[in-house]
């Protein structure tokens, strides 16, 4: 039996080796071969095969906007009323934190009430920090906001913040309702899961195109994009959290005669609250990420500052705004995590009056009122004095110039080395492959790893890219994603292993990774462009930085979650540390590491599209062009193509990991 197994395994390995060799040879010769045989269709997808999907989609969208009607009202009226609905609270919040309440239009406008003073905002945030966590957190977030004021980023940061303040309640509320619906009606859940899957794999830019088309340029469409982008995790978290409420609690609710509504709102949701807060944290961070990116369709704020300075190649201003985004992101993350981890309430013996029960609320109101009144006399209290602002732009500018002057040769050499020896060969290899062979190969992989259905799925998704005439761009996408993921894994997995082996390393790595993950993807572009200018190499570095976290995290988790008995068995058998790692830990952690690679690929693909800003020539660029031209069909088709690549990679790796797990007896 075991000999047969061995034979089977090696036969399998032989098969893959053979396929690889054939592929490699094909990549080298097929271009010439095709020329020789006069069969150019092998390399380039013939025009007859293409289906003009993007035109159809664009036409459909135009029809929607121009002439679609639901009888009582037209489609345009519907989108306008949605805009109006979102605009009201947005205007209110914006007036509250930044612009002040005014009456009248344009030059006639008279300020009725000033906005919250910068001191009041910083104080409220610090108070929230203390309420949710500790004095340390209060001081930390207070300082973060002080930083924004002192370094002259206040106004932009408040615009960004007001977008988040609106997007988060919509995202959380909508996610909660959809999640509850999914919990209550299994058919709804089944319907929603593939939609959520798609929403999370379609790159962010692709959302922007149709939204731009339907809602126009401006903060409202940015908000809609943000809500759509940030909602899916909340839906999932809600459904999962409700399912995880102990069955006894549910039975208790039934036994005391709760109606369905009481059951949901008074028993299930409060019981699941700690888990739901994790979802809220995710919504906040995703909203921030998206609000920054949505500056392309008019969100304004810090993202807009970064975008304009990137376009002007104004290094100093870009980095300043970038650092402000980082500061804001970290402050929001720590704050919302503190709320999520807030210990449950404790009893108190005394009867308290309203002021004693809500000391912070009262103090905050007092500070808001106080600074508001003083601010009328003393403008510095109302608005941080421009004269006292410190600008770091020149410092960053000089730093980057200094690096570029003194290390130009080294930077350039490393860039050229990577390009010539690694990136270009991979690119040539992928672009040299005839498309029918790739189609066969992917389908075969699906069949081998997951059976007939997976094969069919892989084949269909590949065909989608083919018939839309995006083959070459898809291959460039795969190349850029592939090289980034390989390097991210080469760096990330050893770090993860180290973190799992060494507690001190673990603490440092965890803090580093946590911070990396809270940063909006946009931020990664800034330093890369400063140092390496535009091009594939810069894109690759940005992708690696963004996608590194899961490779590290899953590797560490995989090794840490190995059954300690197995490791003890290894020690008792006299393994050296090295043998322990190579023979026991790594093989057993392999399925988990594969899932980490899977996540790395997903993040890499989502970042890839954003790197279109630094001049890549892949599907991301296609989406970006569509965005600038408001060409809905083009954007959606390219976006879905990226999603196709993501889904193929996801399903194949998940199937492989599952197989591996089963073979190890872990599943």
């Amino acid at each position: 039996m075991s000999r047969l197994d061995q034979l089977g395994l090696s036969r399998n390995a032989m098969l893959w080796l053979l396929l690889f060799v054939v592929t490699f040879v094909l990549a080298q010769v097929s271009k010439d071969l095709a020329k020789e045989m006069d069969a150019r269709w092998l390399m380039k997808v013939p025009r007859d095969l293409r289906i003009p999907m993007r035109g159809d989609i664009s036409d459909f969208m135009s029809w929607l906007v121009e002439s679609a009607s639901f009888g009582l009202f037209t489609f345009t009226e519907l989108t306008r009323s949605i805009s109006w609905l979102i605009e009201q609270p947005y205007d209110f919040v914006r007036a509250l934190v930044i612009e002040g309440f005014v009456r009248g239009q344009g030059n006639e406008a008279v300020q009725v009430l000033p906005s919250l003073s910068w001191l009041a905002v910083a104080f409220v945030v610090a108070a929230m920090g203390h309420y949710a966590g500790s004095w340390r957190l209060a001081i930390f977030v207070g300082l973060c906001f002080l930083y924004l004021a002192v370094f002259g980023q206040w106004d932009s940061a408040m615009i960004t913040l007001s977008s988040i303040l609106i997007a988060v309640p919509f995202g959380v509320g909508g996610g909660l309702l959809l999640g509850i619906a999914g919990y209550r009606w299994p058919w709804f859940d089944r319907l929603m899961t593939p939609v959520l899957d798609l929403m999370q794999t379609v790159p962010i830019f692709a959302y922007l195109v149709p939204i731009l088309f339907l809602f126009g340029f401006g903060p409202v469409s940015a908000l809609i994009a943000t809500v759509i982008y940030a909602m899916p995790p909340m839906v999932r978290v809600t459904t999962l959290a409700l399912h995880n409420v102990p069955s006894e609690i549910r039975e208790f609710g039934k036994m005391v005669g709760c109606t369905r509504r009481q059951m949901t709102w008074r028993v299930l949701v409060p019981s699941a609250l700690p888990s739901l807060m994790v979802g809220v944290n995710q919504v906040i961070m995703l909203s921030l990420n998206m609000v920054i990116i949505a500056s392309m369709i008019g969100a304004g704020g810090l993202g807009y500052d970064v975008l304009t300075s990137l376009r002007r190649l104004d290094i100093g201003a870009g980095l300043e705004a970038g650092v402000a985004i980082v500061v804001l992101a970290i402050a929001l993350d720590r704050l919302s995590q503190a709320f999520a981890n807030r210990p449950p309430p404790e009893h108190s013996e005394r009867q308290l009056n309203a002021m004693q029960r809500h000391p912070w609320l009262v103090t905050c109101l007092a500070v808001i009122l106080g600074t508001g009144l003083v601010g009328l006399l003393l403008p510095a209290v109302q608005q941080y004095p421009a004269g006292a602002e410190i600008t770091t732009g020149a410092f960053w500018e000089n730093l980057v110039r200094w690096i570029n002057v003194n290390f130009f040769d080294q930077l350039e050499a490393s860039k050229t080395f990577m390009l010539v020896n690694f990136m270009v060969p991979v690119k040539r290899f992928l672009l040299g492959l005839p498309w029918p062979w790739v189609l066969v190969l992917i389908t075969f992989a699906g069949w081998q790893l997951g059976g007939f259905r997976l094969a069919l799925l892989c084949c269909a998704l590949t065909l989608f890219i083919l018939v839309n005439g995006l083959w070459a761009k898809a291959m460039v996408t795969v190349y850029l994603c592939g090289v980034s993921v390989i390097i991210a894994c080469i760096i990330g997995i050893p770090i993860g292993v180290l973190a799992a082996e060494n507690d001190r390393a673990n603490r440092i790595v965890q803090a580093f990774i946590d911070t990396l993950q809270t940063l909006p993807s946009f931020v990664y572009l800034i330093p890369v462009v400063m140092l390496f200018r535009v091009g594939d190499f810069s894109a690759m570095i940005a992708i690696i930085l963004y996608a590194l976290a899961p490779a590290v995290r899953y590797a560490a988790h995989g090794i840490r979650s190995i059954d300690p008995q197995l490791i003890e068995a290894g020690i008792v058998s006299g393994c050296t540390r090295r043998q322990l790692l190579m023979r026991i830990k790594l093989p057993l952690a392999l399925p988990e590491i594969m899932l980490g690679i899977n996540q790395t690929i997903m993040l890499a693909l989502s970042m890839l599209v954003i790197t279109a800003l630094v001049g890549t020539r892949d599907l991301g660029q296609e989406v970006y062009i569509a965005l600038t031209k408001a060409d809905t069909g083009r954007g959606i088709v390219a976006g879905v193509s990226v999603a196709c690549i993501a889904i193929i990679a996801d399903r194949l790796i998940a199937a492989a990991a599952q197989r591996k797990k089963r073979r190890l007896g872990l599943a």
Partner: protein
Amino acid sequence: MQPKPVKLACRNVWKLFGEGADRLLAARPHPELSEIHAAGLIGAVRDANIEIREGEIFVIMGLSGSGKSTLVRCLSRLIEPTAGEILFDGQDLLRASEQEMIELRRHKMGMVFQHFALLPHLSVLQNVSFPLDVQGVPRAEREAAARDVIELVGLKGRESYFPRELSGGQQQRVGIARSLAVKPELWFLDEPFSALDPLIRREMQDEFLRLQSVLHKTIVFITHDFEEAIRLADRIGIMKDGEVIQVASPEELVLSPANDYVAEFTKHIPRAKVLTVGSIMQPGPPTDEVAGEVSAAARIEDVADRVEASDQPHAVIDEDGAVVGSIGGQAVVDVLVGRGAPR
């Protein structure tokens, strides 16, 4: 003594888990276990028939997987039985509408859960008054009622605590108080003490008996612990593989187990804890001079010391004080050491 009226009865109740359970029961009203397995179903409750009388403690005892938890959930209709009738005061619960069920549960039933099922975000007082809150009882009224039951279970002074600040035993006291807040007629307890340490468990059993001596509820009590069942029950239903294999008083179970399975449980139970004086006495008036009187309903355990220490037998009297027999030291010793035990 006239038996009390039946409060809750289940007749031919079946619960099969899996696809096509209805079809199987429609085709064959009494399938064998092997047929159920062959159809790919799980027979959690098979043809259960029990009657629970007003004011009695009815214990359903069985090992894990015997279907006892499923049966109690059928009785309260937390799980919809596949077939059968559940009669509560003569009304078939399975025909009740959702609205009727809500009303019944709000006013007539209470349930205590194995893992307490307290709401973590509410204080003790809020937890206990929650069932009344759901019914829309005004705040002052429901909190007064809640304070009463909190005092009844001995948690006075802890009203403002939150569940995680309490020990397991205290948490279950809150669970008990909460289930009593609506003054239910029917009280379900699903392994209420199984999650507690043995010492606390014993204390809680005493507490439970004390409460019942005050409240006289109709109780369905689930346990996997035979000793607990013996200690608490007026009558016990023993379940195995979804079937109720015997329903009897603790004494009857020990004296005449229906089969080897039941006998296996009773074998390890000290007989003195179960048998009453009446079951081993010499009937008829005492022949010799007697040293004193013992009640026929007393457990041997409680009188053994006294009877054994005396050279002369004791007279046995019934509830009305009439002498119905006698019991000597030898008979008690026989029971204590398990010799020649009456079968």
